[in-house]
């Protein structure tokens, strides 16, 4: 379990992280959200022991930082922002170096390296120097490095940044599959990632916690929670008639589609629409209900 207790980080005049407390248990995949400059990366740097908090305490599975940093670091796999790696090393050399430092020698080291190379499909670039790799490969090398010791805690700063949709899918699958008994913290501002991966979301703005919820709870805060999008055929002036429905709070239209936000607590908006269509003799071409829009919640909470 990772536990942050009233952690703050002050840089000269600037307070990057302000009194942040939360804990994450094994099996959780925590999405760490916030606008650029909100303090996400600083927080991750403190959890990994790279930075020391100005005040407050951090504890990783009973090891408190910074006093027990060496033990704590052994449990962590970390992908820093931008997936830095020594460009003049080959992928093979780099991964063997990391395995060496993680204490895996000889055959076991070889096995560890082979395992991550397979998991992240790095075989074809195994002997290339890192600086010649594409952004996607570099990111995967960074992930391989973080996974080599099968860590208890995995901290990934924008793990899918720069990957194409296929690679994103694979990396997410990888993270999902390994997270059963691990603590995973992912910082991202790709909101689809939250839906795809996270069991819990923490949002920070200006270094302060603004939200700690499950993705579903977060979506429920959206104005578009339970919003209905509908398209009719042969409809005359649907805009006005839809707007007249008492259960509708707000109506938008784009490209012949209408999106209706229901009144809070209003039930049966779908029935209202169906009845309206029947009365007016419109055919419903498509109709779907949204779970809510995370970007909308994100803006509401952090802007």
């Amino acid at each position, binding site marked *: 379990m990772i536990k942050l207790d009233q952690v703050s980080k002050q*840089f000269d005049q600037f307070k990057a992280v302000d009194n942040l407390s939360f804990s994450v248990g094994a099996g959780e995949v925590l999405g760490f959200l916030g606008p650029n400059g909100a303090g996400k990366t600083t927080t991750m*740097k403190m959890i*990994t*022991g*790279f*930075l*020391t908090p100005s005040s407050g305490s951090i504890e990783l599975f009973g090891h408190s930082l910074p006093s027990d940093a*060496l033990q704590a*670091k*052994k449990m*962590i796999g*970390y992908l*820093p*922002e*931008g997936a*830095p*790696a*020594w*460009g*003049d*090393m080959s992928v093979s*050399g780099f991964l063997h*170096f*990391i395995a*060496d*430092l*993680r*204490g895996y020698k000889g055959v076991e080291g070889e096995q560890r390296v082979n395992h991550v190379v397979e998991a992240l499909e790095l075989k074809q670039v195994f002997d290339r*120097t890192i600086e010649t790799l594409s952004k996607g490969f570099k990111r995967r090398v960074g992930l391989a*490095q973080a996974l080599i010791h099968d860590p208890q805690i995995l901290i990934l700063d924008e793990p899918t940044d720069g990957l194409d949709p296929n690679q994103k899918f694979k990396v997410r699958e990888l993270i999902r599959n390994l997270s059963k008994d691990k603590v995973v913290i992912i910082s991202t501002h790709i909101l689809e990632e939250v839906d795809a991966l996270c069991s819990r979301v923490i949002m920070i703005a200006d270094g302060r916690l603004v939200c700690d919820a499950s993705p579903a709870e977060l979506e429920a805060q959206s104005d578009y929670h339970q919003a209905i999008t509908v398209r009719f055929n042969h409809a005359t002036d649907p805009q006005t008639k839809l707007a007249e429905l008492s259960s509708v709070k707000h109506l938008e239209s784009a490209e012949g589609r209408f999106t209706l936000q229901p009144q809070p607590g209003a039930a049966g908006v779908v029935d209202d629409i169906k009845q309206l269509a029947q009365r007016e003799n419109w055919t419903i071409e498509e109709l779907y209900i949204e779970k809510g829009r995370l970007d909308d919640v994100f803006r509401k909470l952090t802007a």
Partner: protein
Amino acid sequence: MNRLPIIFKRELSSYFATPLAYVFIVIFLIVSSIFTFNIGGFYETGQADLQVFFNFHPWLYLFFVPAIAMRLWSEELRSGTVELLLTLPIKLSEAVLGKFLAAWVFIGIALLLTLPLWITVNYLGDPDNGIIFTSYLGSWLMSGAFLAIGSCMSATTQNQVIAFILTISLCFVFIVTGFPMMLAVVSSWLPSSMVDLIASMSFLIHFNAISRGVLDFRDLLFFLIMMTGWLFATAIVIEKKKAG
């Protein structure tokens, strides 16, 4: 410290991962030969020793060592690999020392490649090989002290050029404090104990003592203390630098 060899190995092999190391060694050998034969007049002195060769080493190192040292930490800071390195289960001291030792050994390799010169003087005459040996040792120790200064300067900035210039400037100061001319200037307004102190900080004076064949424990200690001090400072600077 059990992970120090792993860091050391990676660093040292990274020197030879690019042609840069070979180019560096070749230039080092050419320049040291020019100093020895053309400027120093190796043959004209008519003596079977390597005094002229070693005389130029402080000046040789003034440019070569900062060139090696500048990338030690600047590059890590610029590319962000410092974050990767220092979140691995190693101590900062292991990283500082591992990097330093690799660079120091690299300079040692360049120095060893001048051994044909030693063979040559033995072929030409009958030199005092003891003096030559201590001179090599002194030269390598001095390069280590330069390098430790460079390590610290390189930790202060992401910019290798700035690191290079800072190191040259500081190393220059540590050379010229031993010049009689400089000492004459300061002795006019400083008490003699201070002048002695300044003179005792000079790399030149300690190196000259060793290269004359006088292997005084204090001269060796001087360079070792210099290295330790500047490496300690390197660790402190990195600790500060990490915070942004």
